[in-house]
Protein backbone atom coordinates (compact mmCIF):
# COMPACT_ATOMS: atom_id res chain seq x y z
CA UNK A 1 0.00 0.00 0.00
CA UNK A 2 1.31 3.42 -0.78
CA UNK A 3 0.32 6.93 -1.69
CA UNK A 4 1.68 9.13 -4.46
CA UNK A 5 3.36 12.32 -3.34
CA UNK A 6 4.22 15.31 -5.49
CA UNK A 7 7.95 15.38 -6.21
CA UNK A 8 8.39 19.01 -5.19
CA UNK A 9 5.21 20.11 -3.47
CA UNK A 10 4.67 17.05 -1.31
CA UNK A 11 0.96 17.13 -2.18
CA UNK A 12 -0.71 13.77 -1.95
CA UNK A 13 -2.71 12.38 -4.88
CA UNK A 14 -6.27 11.44 -3.99
CA UNK A 15 -8.39 8.46 -5.02
CA UNK A 16 -12.06 9.10 -5.71
CA UNK A 17 -14.42 7.56 -3.17
CA UNK A 18 -17.20 6.61 -5.56
CA UNK A 19 -15.28 5.11 -8.47
CA UNK A 20 -11.97 4.38 -6.74
CA UNK A 21 -10.24 6.31 -9.52
CA UNK A 22 -6.96 8.17 -9.13
CA UNK A 23 -7.38 11.93 -9.51
CA UNK A 24 -5.27 13.39 -12.31
CA UNK A 25 -5.03 16.87 -13.79
CA UNK A 26 -4.12 16.65 -17.46
CA UNK A 27 -1.67 19.08 -19.02
CA UNK A 28 -0.48 19.55 -22.57
CA UNK A 29 2.87 18.00 -23.36
CA UNK A 30 5.63 20.30 -22.14
CA UNK A 31 7.30 22.35 -24.85
CA UNK A 32 10.07 23.48 -22.54
CA UNK A 33 13.65 23.59 -23.76
CA UNK A 34 13.83 24.40 -27.42
CA UNK A 35 10.23 23.70 -28.36
CA UNK A 36 6.97 25.57 -28.46
CA UNK A 37 3.29 25.55 -29.33
CA UNK A 38 1.87 27.52 -32.25
CA UNK A 39 -1.25 28.33 -34.28
CA UNK A 40 -1.77 30.32 -37.44
CA UNK A 41 -4.59 31.09 -39.90
CA UNK A 42 -3.66 32.12 -43.44
CA UNK A 43 -5.99 33.44 -46.12
CA UNK A 44 -5.27 33.25 -49.82
CA UNK A 45 -5.81 36.00 -52.32
CA UNK A 46 -8.58 35.67 -54.89
CA UNK A 47 -7.25 32.71 -56.82
CA UNK A 48 -8.51 32.88 -60.38
CA UNK A 49 -10.12 29.87 -61.96
CA UNK A 50 -8.00 30.27 -65.08
CA UNK A 51 -4.91 29.15 -63.14
CA UNK A 52 -6.50 25.96 -61.84
CA UNK A 53 -6.42 22.95 -64.13
CA UNK A 54 -7.21 19.27 -63.79
CA UNK A 55 -3.78 18.50 -62.35
CA UNK A 56 -3.96 19.08 -58.59
CA UNK A 57 -2.70 22.58 -57.90
CA UNK A 58 -0.84 23.51 -54.70
CA UNK A 59 -2.66 26.24 -52.77
CA UNK A 60 -0.89 25.99 -49.42
CA UNK A 61 2.48 24.39 -48.70
CA UNK A 62 4.16 23.49 -45.40
CA UNK A 63 7.74 22.19 -45.18
CA UNK A 64 9.50 21.07 -42.01
CA UNK A 65 13.30 20.98 -42.38
CA UNK A 66 14.71 20.66 -38.88
CA UNK A 67 16.89 17.63 -38.18
CA UNK A 68 16.82 18.16 -34.42
CA UNK A 69 13.12 18.72 -33.83
CA UNK A 70 9.80 17.15 -34.73
CA UNK A 71 6.78 19.16 -35.83
CA UNK A 72 3.58 17.64 -34.42
CA UNK A 73 0.57 18.86 -36.38
CA UNK A 74 -2.40 18.64 -34.00
CA UNK A 75 -5.08 20.41 -36.03
CA UNK A 76 -5.63 21.38 -39.62
CA UNK A 77 -8.70 23.19 -40.92
CA UNK A 78 -9.18 24.19 -44.55
CA UNK A 79 -12.10 26.26 -45.81
CA UNK A 80 -12.95 27.31 -49.34
CA UNK A 81 -15.51 29.74 -50.65
CA UNK A 82 -16.01 30.94 -54.24
CA UNK A 83 -16.55 34.72 -54.04
CA UNK A 84 -16.98 34.81 -57.82
CA UNK A 85 -19.26 32.04 -59.00
CA UNK A 86 -18.64 29.97 -62.06
CA UNK A 87 -20.65 30.75 -65.19
CA UNK A 88 -21.73 27.12 -65.47
CA UNK A 89 -22.42 24.92 -62.48
CA UNK A 90 -19.58 22.49 -61.83
CA UNK A 91 -18.01 20.08 -59.37
CA UNK A 92 -15.19 21.47 -57.24
CA UNK A 93 -12.76 19.70 -54.95
CA UNK A 94 -9.72 19.90 -52.73
CA UNK A 95 -7.49 17.69 -50.64
CA UNK A 96 -4.57 17.65 -48.21
CA UNK A 97 -1.68 15.34 -48.98
CA UNK A 98 1.50 14.35 -47.13
CA UNK A 99 4.77 15.46 -48.83
CA UNK A 100 8.05 13.68 -48.05
CA UNK A 101 11.74 13.98 -49.00
CA UNK A 102 11.60 17.69 -49.76
CA UNK A 103 14.76 18.97 -51.44
CA UNK A 104 13.25 22.26 -52.66
CA UNK A 105 10.35 24.17 -51.11
CA UNK A 106 7.32 25.25 -53.11
CA UNK A 107 7.48 28.83 -54.34
CA UNK A 108 5.23 31.70 -55.33
CA UNK A 109 2.29 33.08 -53.40
CA UNK A 110 2.82 34.69 -50.02
CA UNK A 111 5.25 33.25 -47.49
CA UNK A 112 3.88 33.17 -43.94
CA UNK A 113 5.82 35.18 -41.39
CA UNK A 114 6.84 32.85 -38.57
CA UNK A 115 9.81 34.79 -37.25
CA UNK A 116 10.05 36.34 -33.78
CA UNK A 117 7.01 35.74 -31.63
CA UNK A 118 4.66 35.18 -34.56
CA UNK A 119 2.19 32.32 -34.11
CA UNK A 120 3.42 31.41 -30.60
CA UNK A 121 0.77 30.43 -28.08
CA UNK A 122 3.10 31.66 -25.35
CA UNK A 123 5.57 34.42 -26.04
CA UNK A 124 8.27 32.65 -24.05
CA UNK A 125 8.31 29.72 -26.44
CA UNK A 126 11.01 29.42 -29.06
CA UNK A 127 10.65 30.89 -32.52
CA UNK A 128 9.13 28.35 -34.88
CA UNK A 129 11.53 26.19 -36.89
CA UNK A 130 9.13 25.75 -39.82
CA UNK A 131 11.29 25.93 -42.95
CA UNK A 132 8.71 27.26 -45.38
CA UNK A 133 4.97 27.88 -45.26
CA UNK A 134 3.11 29.75 -48.01
CA UNK A 135 -0.31 30.32 -49.50
CA UNK A 136 -1.47 31.24 -52.99
CA UNK A 137 -2.28 34.81 -53.94
CA UNK A 138 -3.91 35.01 -57.41
CA UNK A 139 -2.58 31.80 -58.94
CA UNK A 140 -1.58 28.42 -57.60
CA UNK A 141 1.87 27.86 -56.07
CA UNK A 142 4.80 26.47 -58.02
CA UNK A 143 5.59 22.98 -56.78
CA UNK A 144 9.04 22.42 -55.33
CA UNK A 145 10.83 19.08 -55.28
CA UNK A 146 9.12 16.60 -52.99
CA UNK A 147 7.45 13.20 -53.12
CA UNK A 148 3.71 13.16 -52.51
CA UNK A 149 1.91 10.22 -50.94
CA UNK A 150 -0.17 8.03 -53.24
CA UNK A 151 -3.40 9.20 -51.59
CA UNK A 152 -4.41 12.33 -49.67
CA UNK A 153 -5.42 12.16 -46.00
CA UNK A 154 -8.29 14.65 -46.24
CA UNK A 155 -10.51 15.54 -49.19
CA UNK A 156 -13.82 17.07 -50.20
CA UNK A 157 -15.98 17.28 -53.32
CA UNK A 158 -18.92 19.61 -53.79
CA UNK A 159 -21.20 21.07 -56.44
CA UNK A 160 -21.09 24.80 -57.09
CA UNK A 161 -24.07 26.48 -58.78
CA UNK A 162 -23.73 29.00 -61.57
CA UNK A 163 -23.76 32.76 -61.15
CA UNK A 164 -27.49 33.14 -61.71
CA UNK A 165 -28.49 31.01 -58.74
CA UNK A 166 -29.84 33.23 -55.99
CA UNK A 167 -28.68 31.09 -53.10
CA UNK A 168 -25.75 31.49 -50.71
CA UNK A 169 -22.37 30.38 -51.97
CA UNK A 170 -21.47 27.24 -50.08
CA UNK A 171 -18.52 26.89 -47.74
CA UNK A 172 -16.38 23.82 -48.30
CA UNK A 173 -14.36 22.41 -45.45
CA UNK A 174 -11.94 19.65 -44.49
CA UNK A 175 -10.41 19.08 -41.08
CA UNK A 176 -7.75 16.92 -39.45
CA UNK A 177 -8.05 16.99 -35.68
CA UNK A 178 -5.65 15.14 -33.36
CA UNK A 179 -5.92 17.47 -30.38
CA UNK A 180 -7.38 14.62 -28.42
CA UNK A 181 -4.56 12.43 -27.04
CA UNK A 182 -6.29 9.28 -28.27
CA UNK A 183 -5.31 10.00 -31.85
CA UNK A 184 -1.80 9.96 -33.23
CA UNK A 185 -0.80 13.41 -34.54
CA UNK A 186 1.04 14.02 -37.80
CA UNK A 187 4.71 13.77 -36.83
CA UNK A 188 6.79 15.65 -39.34
CA UNK A 189 10.41 14.56 -39.52
CA UNK A 190 13.09 16.43 -41.44
CA UNK A 191 12.02 17.47 -44.95
CA UNK A 192 8.44 16.34 -44.70
CA UNK A 193 5.29 18.45 -44.82
CA UNK A 194 1.86 18.70 -46.37
CA UNK A 195 0.19 20.39 -49.32
CA UNK A 196 -3.37 21.73 -49.64
CA UNK A 197 -4.50 21.35 -53.25
CA UNK A 198 -7.31 22.30 -55.57
CA UNK A 199 -8.11 19.01 -57.31
CA UNK A 200 -10.53 19.84 -60.15
CA UNK A 201 -10.23 22.21 -63.08
CA UNK A 202 -12.08 25.51 -62.57
CA UNK A 203 -13.78 27.51 -65.27
CA UNK A 204 -11.95 30.79 -65.81
CA UNK A 205 -14.87 32.86 -64.59
CA UNK A 206 -14.74 31.66 -60.99
CA UNK A 207 -12.45 32.65 -58.14
CA UNK A 208 -11.48 30.84 -54.95
CA UNK A 209 -10.64 32.07 -51.47
CA UNK A 210 -8.94 29.57 -49.14
CA UNK A 211 -8.45 29.85 -45.39
CA UNK A 212 -5.95 27.42 -43.84
CA UNK A 213 -5.53 27.06 -40.08
CA UNK A 214 -2.65 25.05 -38.61
CA UNK A 215 -2.03 24.24 -34.96
CA UNK A 216 1.26 22.54 -34.15
CA UNK A 217 3.85 21.83 -31.47
CA UNK A 218 7.61 21.60 -31.86
CA UNK A 219 9.79 19.31 -29.75
CA UNK A 220 13.36 18.21 -29.72
CA UNK A 221 13.39 14.70 -31.16
CA UNK A 222 14.74 13.32 -27.88
CA UNK A 223 11.76 14.83 -26.03
CA UNK A 224 9.10 13.16 -28.14
CA UNK A 225 8.90 9.44 -27.60
CA UNK A 226 6.08 8.16 -29.75
Amino acid at each position, binding site marked *: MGVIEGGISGNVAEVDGAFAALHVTERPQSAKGQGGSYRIAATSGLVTGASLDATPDPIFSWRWGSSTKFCLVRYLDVQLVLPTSVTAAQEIGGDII*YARTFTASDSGGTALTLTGANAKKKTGHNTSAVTDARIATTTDLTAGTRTL*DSQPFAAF*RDWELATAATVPHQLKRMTFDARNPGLYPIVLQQDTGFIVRNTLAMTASGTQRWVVTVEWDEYLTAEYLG
Partner: protein
Amino acid sequence: MGKLEGPLTEQLAEVDAFGFTATGGGLVTTPRPYDAQIATIFSSGGQGGAHFISATTGLVTGGGLTAGAPIAAFCNDRSDRLLLIKRIEVNLVLPTSVTTAQLVGGDLVFVREGNGYGGTNVLSGLVTNSQKKRSSHSTTAAKLNMATTTNISPPSDVVREMGPFLGFRFWELATGATVPHGRGSMVWDARNPGSYPIVLESKGSSPNPVRSGIELQNAVAMTASGTQRWTVTIEWEFTNEQVWQRGQRGLF
Protein backbone atom coordinates in the same frame (compact mmCIF):
# COMPACT_ATOMS: atom_id res chain seq x y z
CA MET B 1 4.25 7.44 0.73
CA GLY B 2 6.05 7.30 -2.59
CA LYS B 3 7.10 9.41 -5.48
CA LEU B 4 7.00 8.56 -9.19
CA GLU B 5 10.26 9.11 -11.01
CA GLY B 6 11.01 9.03 -14.74
CA PRO B 7 13.57 6.28 -15.44
CA LEU B 8 15.42 8.32 -18.06
CA THR B 9 14.88 11.90 -16.96
CA GLU B 10 14.81 11.24 -13.21
CA GLN B 11 12.05 13.89 -13.09
CA LEU B 12 9.61 13.50 -10.22
CA ALA B 13 5.91 13.50 -11.04
CA GLU B 14 4.05 16.35 -9.39
CA VAL B 15 0.66 16.40 -7.70
CA ASP B 16 -1.60 19.40 -8.24
CA ALA B 17 -2.27 21.33 -5.05
CA PHE B 18 -5.68 22.48 -6.20
CA GLY B 19 -7.29 19.08 -6.31
CA PHE B 20 -10.69 17.77 -5.50
CA THR B 21 -10.58 17.46 -1.74
CA ALA B 22 -9.08 19.37 1.11
CA THR B 23 -6.49 16.74 1.72
CA GLY B 24 -5.36 15.55 -1.67
CA GLY B 25 -4.73 16.72 -5.20
CA GLY B 26 -4.52 15.24 -8.68
CA LEU B 27 -1.51 13.59 -10.26
CA VAL B 28 -0.28 15.81 -13.10
CA THR B 29 -0.21 13.84 -16.36
CA THR B 30 0.43 14.60 -20.02
CA PRO B 31 -1.66 12.20 -22.12
CA ARG B 32 -0.04 10.67 -25.19
CA PRO B 33 -1.49 8.76 -28.13
CA TYR B 34 -1.44 5.00 -27.94
CA ASP B 35 1.96 3.94 -29.27
CA ALA B 36 1.31 1.34 -31.92
CA GLN B 37 4.90 1.42 -33.04
CA ILE B 38 6.53 -0.55 -30.21
CA ALA B 39 8.93 -2.79 -32.05
CA THR B 40 11.16 -4.67 -29.68
CA ILE B 41 9.48 -5.07 -26.32
CA PHE B 42 7.58 -8.19 -27.32
CA SER B 43 9.07 -11.27 -28.88
CA SER B 44 6.98 -11.10 -32.02
CA GLY B 45 7.61 -7.39 -32.42
CA GLY B 46 5.03 -4.62 -32.58
CA GLN B 47 6.08 -2.99 -35.82
CA GLY B 48 2.85 -1.12 -36.20
CA GLY B 49 1.98 2.42 -37.07
CA ALA B 50 -0.58 5.19 -37.40
CA HIS B 51 -2.09 5.86 -40.80
CA PHE B 52 -4.73 7.92 -42.60
CA ILE B 53 -6.26 8.19 -46.04
CA SER B 54 -8.93 10.06 -47.90
CA ALA B 55 -10.13 8.34 -51.07
CA THR B 56 -12.69 9.52 -53.60
CA THR B 57 -14.76 7.39 -55.93
CA GLY B 58 -15.29 8.05 -59.59
CA LEU B 59 -18.68 9.28 -60.77
CA VAL B 60 -20.83 6.35 -59.73
CA THR B 61 -23.83 6.13 -62.06
CA GLY B 62 -27.29 5.70 -60.64
CA GLY B 63 -28.27 2.97 -63.08
CA GLY B 64 -28.13 -0.36 -61.26
CA LEU B 65 -27.27 1.22 -57.93
CA THR B 66 -29.57 -0.76 -55.66
CA ALA B 67 -30.16 -0.40 -51.95
CA GLY B 68 -27.29 -2.10 -50.15
CA ALA B 69 -24.89 -1.95 -53.08
CA PRO B 70 -21.28 -1.77 -51.75
CA ILE B 71 -19.40 1.45 -52.56
CA ALA B 72 -16.22 0.92 -50.52
CA ALA B 73 -14.73 -1.70 -48.21
CA PHE B 74 -11.91 -1.52 -45.67
CA CYS B 75 -10.42 -4.63 -44.08
CA ASN B 76 -7.47 -6.04 -42.18
CA ASP B 77 -5.38 -8.19 -44.48
CA ARG B 78 -2.69 -9.48 -42.13
CA SER B 79 -3.26 -12.34 -39.73
CA ASP B 80 -0.67 -11.25 -37.16
CA ARG B 81 -1.96 -7.73 -36.75
CA LEU B 82 -4.96 -5.87 -35.38
CA LEU B 83 -6.35 -2.73 -37.03
CA LEU B 84 -7.75 -0.11 -34.67
CA ILE B 85 -10.06 2.30 -36.48
CA LYS B 86 -10.14 5.64 -34.67
CA ARG B 87 -12.21 7.73 -37.07
CA ILE B 88 -14.33 7.29 -40.19
CA GLU B 89 -15.86 10.11 -42.22
CA VAL B 90 -17.98 9.59 -45.30
CA ASN B 91 -19.23 12.36 -47.56
CA LEU B 92 -21.53 12.15 -50.58
CA VAL B 93 -22.45 14.72 -53.20
CA LEU B 94 -24.55 14.22 -56.33
CA PRO B 95 -22.80 16.05 -59.19
CA THR B 96 -25.56 14.96 -61.56
CA SER B 97 -28.99 15.44 -60.04
CA VAL B 98 -31.78 12.96 -60.33
CA THR B 99 -34.65 13.62 -62.74
CA THR B 100 -37.14 13.06 -59.94
CA ALA B 101 -36.59 14.13 -56.36
CA GLN B 102 -35.72 11.19 -54.12
CA LEU B 103 -34.26 10.01 -50.84
CA VAL B 104 -30.50 9.36 -50.90
CA GLY B 105 -28.32 7.77 -48.25
CA GLY B 106 -25.49 5.58 -47.08
CA ASP B 107 -24.83 2.96 -44.40
CA LEU B 108 -21.74 1.47 -42.79
CA VAL B 109 -21.89 -2.17 -41.76
CA PHE B 110 -19.45 -4.49 -40.04
CA VAL B 111 -18.10 -7.33 -42.12
CA ARG B 112 -16.71 -10.39 -40.33
CA GLU B 113 -15.25 -11.90 -43.47
CA GLY B 114 -14.51 -9.36 -46.12
CA ASN B 115 -11.36 -9.95 -48.13
CA GLY B 116 -11.65 -9.98 -51.91
CA TYR B 117 -13.87 -7.04 -52.84
CA GLY B 118 -13.80 -5.69 -56.35
CA GLY B 119 -13.02 -2.08 -57.27
CA THR B 120 -9.65 -0.44 -56.78
CA ASN B 121 -7.55 -1.14 -53.67
CA VAL B 122 -6.18 2.35 -53.10
CA LEU B 123 -3.75 1.07 -50.45
CA SER B 124 -1.92 -1.10 -52.97
CA GLY B 125 1.29 -0.12 -54.75
CA LEU B 126 1.86 2.99 -52.65
CA VAL B 127 4.92 5.19 -52.91
CA THR B 128 7.35 4.73 -50.02
CA ASN B 129 5.95 5.76 -46.62
CA SER B 130 2.63 6.75 -48.14
CA GLN B 131 -0.31 7.25 -45.73
CA LYS B 132 1.89 7.07 -42.61
CA LYS B 133 1.50 9.76 -39.97
CA ARG B 134 5.19 9.37 -39.27
CA SER B 135 7.59 8.15 -41.94
CA SER B 136 9.36 5.70 -39.62
CA HIS B 137 6.20 3.69 -38.99
CA SER B 138 5.63 0.35 -40.67
CA THR B 139 3.68 -0.13 -43.89
CA THR B 140 -0.01 -0.66 -43.25
CA ALA B 141 -1.74 -4.01 -43.37
CA ALA B 142 -5.09 -2.68 -44.59
CA LYS B 143 -7.03 -2.77 -47.84
CA LEU B 144 -9.42 -0.04 -48.98
CA ASN B 145 -11.37 -0.96 -52.09
CA MET B 146 -13.22 1.91 -53.79
CA ALA B 147 -15.82 2.09 -56.54
CA THR B 148 -15.14 3.89 -59.78
CA THR B 149 -18.25 4.12 -61.98
CA THR B 150 -20.32 1.24 -60.57
CA ASN B 151 -20.65 -0.38 -57.18
CA ILE B 152 -18.00 -2.90 -56.12
CA SER B 153 -18.65 -6.62 -55.88
CA PRO B 154 -18.36 -8.33 -52.48
CA PRO B 155 -16.45 -11.60 -52.05
CA SER B 156 -18.62 -14.67 -52.47
CA ASP B 157 -18.13 -15.68 -48.83
CA VAL B 158 -18.80 -12.25 -47.33
CA VAL B 159 -20.35 -12.32 -43.83
CA ARG B 160 -22.06 -9.05 -42.87
CA GLU B 161 -23.69 -7.96 -39.66
CA MET B 162 -27.46 -7.74 -39.84
CA GLY B 163 -27.71 -3.97 -39.49
CA PRO B 164 -25.54 -0.90 -40.01
CA PHE B 165 -23.68 0.87 -37.21
CA LEU B 166 -23.80 4.26 -38.91
CA GLY B 167 -26.00 5.84 -41.56
CA PHE B 168 -27.38 9.03 -43.08
CA ARG B 169 -30.25 10.05 -45.37
CA PHE B 170 -31.14 13.27 -47.20
CA TRP B 171 -33.64 14.42 -49.78
CA GLU B 172 -32.24 15.31 -53.19
CA LEU B 173 -34.21 17.68 -55.41
CA ALA B 174 -34.70 17.11 -59.11
CA THR B 175 -32.46 18.55 -61.81
CA GLY B 176 -34.42 21.76 -62.38
CA ALA B 177 -34.07 23.07 -58.84
CA THR B 178 -31.59 25.95 -58.65
CA VAL B 179 -30.55 25.22 -55.10
CA PRO B 180 -27.33 23.65 -53.86
CA HIS B 181 -27.12 19.94 -54.53
CA GLY B 182 -27.72 17.86 -51.46
CA ARG B 183 -24.78 16.65 -49.43
CA GLY B 184 -24.75 13.83 -46.97
CA SER B 185 -22.15 12.84 -44.43
CA MET B 186 -21.60 10.55 -41.47
CA VAL B 187 -18.82 10.42 -38.91
CA TRP B 188 -17.77 7.73 -36.48
CA ASP B 189 -15.24 9.05 -33.97
CA ALA B 190 -13.27 7.15 -31.31
CA ARG B 191 -10.40 9.61 -31.02
CA ASN B 192 -11.26 10.13 -27.38
CA PRO B 193 -9.22 7.49 -25.50
CA GLY B 194 -12.27 6.63 -23.43
CA SER B 195 -14.08 5.37 -26.51
CA TYR B 196 -13.37 1.84 -27.66
CA PRO B 197 -12.10 1.80 -31.25
CA ILE B 198 -13.26 -0.63 -33.91
CA VAL B 199 -10.78 -3.51 -33.64
CA LEU B 200 -10.52 -5.47 -36.87
CA GLU B 201 -9.12 -8.95 -36.45
CA SER B 202 -7.54 -11.08 -39.13
CA LYS B 203 -7.15 -14.74 -38.29
CA GLY B 204 -6.75 -18.07 -39.98
CA SER B 205 -6.24 -18.93 -43.60
CA SER B 206 -8.12 -20.56 -46.44
CA PRO B 207 -10.64 -22.17 -46.43
CA ASN B 208 -11.89 -20.44 -43.25
CA PRO B 209 -10.17 -17.11 -42.95
CA VAL B 210 -11.45 -14.19 -40.91
CA ARG B 211 -10.67 -10.84 -42.48
CA SER B 212 -12.91 -8.46 -40.60
CA GLY B 213 -13.68 -5.03 -41.96
CA ILE B 214 -16.34 -2.49 -42.74
CA GLU B 215 -18.45 -1.96 -45.86
CA LEU B 216 -19.92 1.31 -47.10
CA GLN B 217 -23.24 0.78 -48.84
CA ASN B 218 -25.49 2.95 -50.95
CA ALA B 219 -28.65 2.83 -48.86
CA VAL B 220 -31.41 3.81 -51.28
CA ALA B 221 -31.86 2.68 -54.88
CA MET B 222 -30.88 5.48 -57.25
CA THR B 223 -32.66 6.52 -60.42
CA ALA B 224 -30.48 6.01 -63.47
CA SER B 225 -30.17 9.72 -64.21
CA GLY B 226 -28.18 10.65 -61.11
CA THR B 227 -24.53 10.20 -60.24
CA GLN B 228 -22.82 9.95 -56.88
CA ARG B 229 -19.37 11.00 -55.67
CA TRP B 230 -18.26 9.50 -52.35
CA THR B 231 -15.27 10.52 -50.25
CA VAL B 232 -14.14 8.13 -47.53
CA THR B 233 -11.65 9.23 -44.86
CA ILE B 234 -10.27 6.72 -42.35
CA GLU B 235 -7.70 7.04 -39.56
CA TRP B 236 -6.37 3.83 -38.08
CA GLU B 237 -3.49 2.30 -36.21
CA PHE B 238 -2.21 -1.22 -36.49
CA THR B 239 -0.35 -3.26 -33.98
CA ASN B 240 -0.18 -6.81 -32.74
CA GLU B 241 -2.32 -8.54 -30.17
CA GLN B 242 0.36 -8.56 -27.48
CA VAL B 243 0.87 -4.80 -27.64
CA TRP B 244 -2.85 -4.16 -27.68
CA GLN B 245 -3.50 -6.42 -24.69
CA ARG B 246 -0.75 -4.71 -22.74
CA GLY B 247 -2.40 -1.40 -23.43
CA GLN B 248 -5.92 -2.59 -22.70
CA ARG B 249 -5.46 -5.25 -20.04
CA GLY B 250 -8.76 -5.95 -18.37
CA LEU B 251 -10.80 -4.64 -21.28
CA PHE B 252 -9.73 -7.01 -24.01
